[in-house]
């Protein structure tokens, strides 16, 4: 077989994929971009209005709140998942008994959908029904746990539920990194008399940087497209205090029949995702 013939099955196998990527995703992207420059409402039209949709978008209260929220959510959620995930990974790395069982338990929440997580945490956070009501029934009557129903704190309730859900995934990725550390490193630090906790804080993170970057990128994708958790837990409320960009797009698209706004917001989200995914990898490459 000539080399070209040998490649033929691969070409045949890939052609439909390439076709769909180009046509469906490529065309979809271009159409979205174009529509964001038009005055489209319920039906798409070709009435060019320049940057008017973007002007309205950035002047909108909902969008501003949404951007602040997703940034806050992103930083706390990714930071929380990485820190907690690393701590759990280190704990599991101590050669403890039943490690497999623990790993499965910690990872279990990641197999749930955000809708399930959202409902469970909504119940837990509900002041008349969840943790607050339970603790008050036990006799501590001034106990307050009403994050979800207050404007200033509702976003942190979302962060909490998000971290509970996604920590396991960060843990598994970083645990894989820890398993890849050469035993010689440990021997060397032991000879130098460096306590293990200092090695875990100062030495190991630099060595498993690719794993941390992978986990961070995966988590940041979850964070930027966060939608289901918000819809289930707060619906964007109280008021508009937990609006997020993905919800803005969906509301504009399906409730408010405003294609122009929806596509403008979606375009900005796409730009943000490109930056977020590109940045860690670029930094990593430079570090090498």
């Amino acid at each position, binding site marked *: 077989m000539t080399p070209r013939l040998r490649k033929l099955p691969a070409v045949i196998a890939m052609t439909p994929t390439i076709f769909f990527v180009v046509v469906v995703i490529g065309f979809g992207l271009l159409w979205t971009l174009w529509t964001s420059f038009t005055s489209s409402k*319920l039906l798409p039209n070709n009435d060019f209005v320049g940057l008017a949709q973007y002007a309205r978008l950035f002047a909108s209260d909902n969008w501003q709140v949404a951007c602040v929220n997703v940034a806050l959510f992103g930083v706390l959620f990714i930071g929380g998942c990485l820190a907690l995930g690393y701590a759990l990974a280190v704990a599991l790395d101590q050669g403890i008994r039943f490690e497999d069982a623990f790993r499965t338990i910690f990872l279990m929440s990641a197999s749930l959908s955000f809708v399930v997580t959202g409902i469970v945490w909504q119940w837990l956070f509900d002041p008349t029904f969840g943790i607050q009501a339970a603790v008050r029934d036990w006799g501590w009557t001034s106990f307050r746990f009403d994050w979800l*129903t207050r404007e200033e704190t509702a976003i942190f309730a979302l962060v909490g539920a998000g971290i509970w859900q996604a920590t396991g995934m960060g843990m598994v990725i970083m645990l894989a990194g820890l398993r890849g550390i050469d035993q010689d490193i440990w021997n060397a630090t032991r000879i130098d008399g460096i306590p293990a906790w200092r090695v875990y804080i100062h030495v190991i993170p630099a060595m498993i940087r690719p794993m941390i970057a992978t986990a961070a990128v995966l988590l940041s994708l979850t964070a930027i497209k966060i939608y289901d958790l918000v819809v289930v837990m*707060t*619906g964007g*409320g*109280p*008021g508009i205090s937990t609006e997020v960009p993905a919800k803005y797009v969906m509301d504009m698209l399906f409730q*408010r*029949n405003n294609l122009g706004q929806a596509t403008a917001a979606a375009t900005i989200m796409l730009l943000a995702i490109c930056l977020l995914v590109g940045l860690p990898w670029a930094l990593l490459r430079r570090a090498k």
Partner: protein
Amino acid sequence: MSMMKKAALGGLAGLMLSTAAMAQDLSVEVYTNWVSGGESAALNAIAQAFEAKGGKWIDFAVPGDTVAPAISRIVAGDPMGAAKMQSTDLDELYKAGLLADIDQVATDGKWQERLPDFMWNAITRDGHVYGAPINSQSEVWLWYNKAVFEKLGLAEPQSYDELFASLDKIKEAGVIPFAVGGQDWQLNILFLKILAGVAPDVYLGLQGADYEAAINSDGFKQVAEIFGRLRGYDDEGSPGRQWNVAVNMVATGQAAMMVMGDWAKGEFTAAGQTAGKEYGCMLGPQGDSIILTGDMFIFPKIETQRPGQLLLAATMLEPATQVPFNIAKGSMPSTLDTDVTQMDACTQKAMAVLQDPAKRLPGLSYVMTPDRRAAISDAVAKYWSDEAAGPDALVAAMQEAFSSTN
């Protein structure tokens, strides 16, 4: 090929043949997002009346509160024969020339005399009729628990001052005075209810070109103040609460009263209660003008289903369809001359008031784009959840909501 697949393919082919054969017949494919128990029972009432006249009903129901599935099919040139929408969705489809008129049906059925004026205007464009309004829903009901009122010796309040006096007494007695579902659309219903009662002229003013005058009026500020005062009478679990949960709080006596559209009756009925016995419905405390919203069907251009479309449109507004449909749906007939003696006490009360044309206030869905409506509910919900905000904050937010949308 497995037997299952063969059978399925055979069935599919059969289905296609039969639809092709029916094409000249009276078949109509109908889009709705009515999938819950009561809703599909209501839909069945139409389908049965339609099929009794020889029509063939093809169901296209997609759950979710959006018209997007229907729109994408209509735009793609594969329309269904009828679709449930709101009149503000009608505009763009009409301008794009995608809708079929039902002029003859409307003339034969004397729709112009039988429907409220605003509803007639909402379905007509340039002298042609494009929609069949299937129901009216009043969104101004104050529901209350009669047992709680009796125990505390309270009568139906006749003004907002009396209402707040009652609310204070209820609070002292340790009952939640006001059950609130703290979602934007529910808060919006509460706000608009107060507006329609206290300042109906402002409510109508918001729908016109000079909305700024309405927003800056004293009436608006007074309503914002009353609405804001109510924040002190809900319970801490209200943010994000579903409407049916709030209704149940009143039904069980956990809370004394609440405001919701007439679909709340469904929940009381499910709890085994009857209007006027265990629970009361009132249009006040101040003013009894009624905000009417409702659903309508539009008929996209599709020649093969044209005969069916006309039959379906005619069937929809007949009293024999309106009464069973609206009993199942928990709403009122859109045709105000329909005999409602078979229906519940609240519907009869509302229908009596609605005989006076001045009491009929068009719901925002007849006159405003969904974009602006959503901006209004955002402003209202934001005002509600910020307990420190005064009436001026709502005035400013409302102005912003109007100026950013059209």
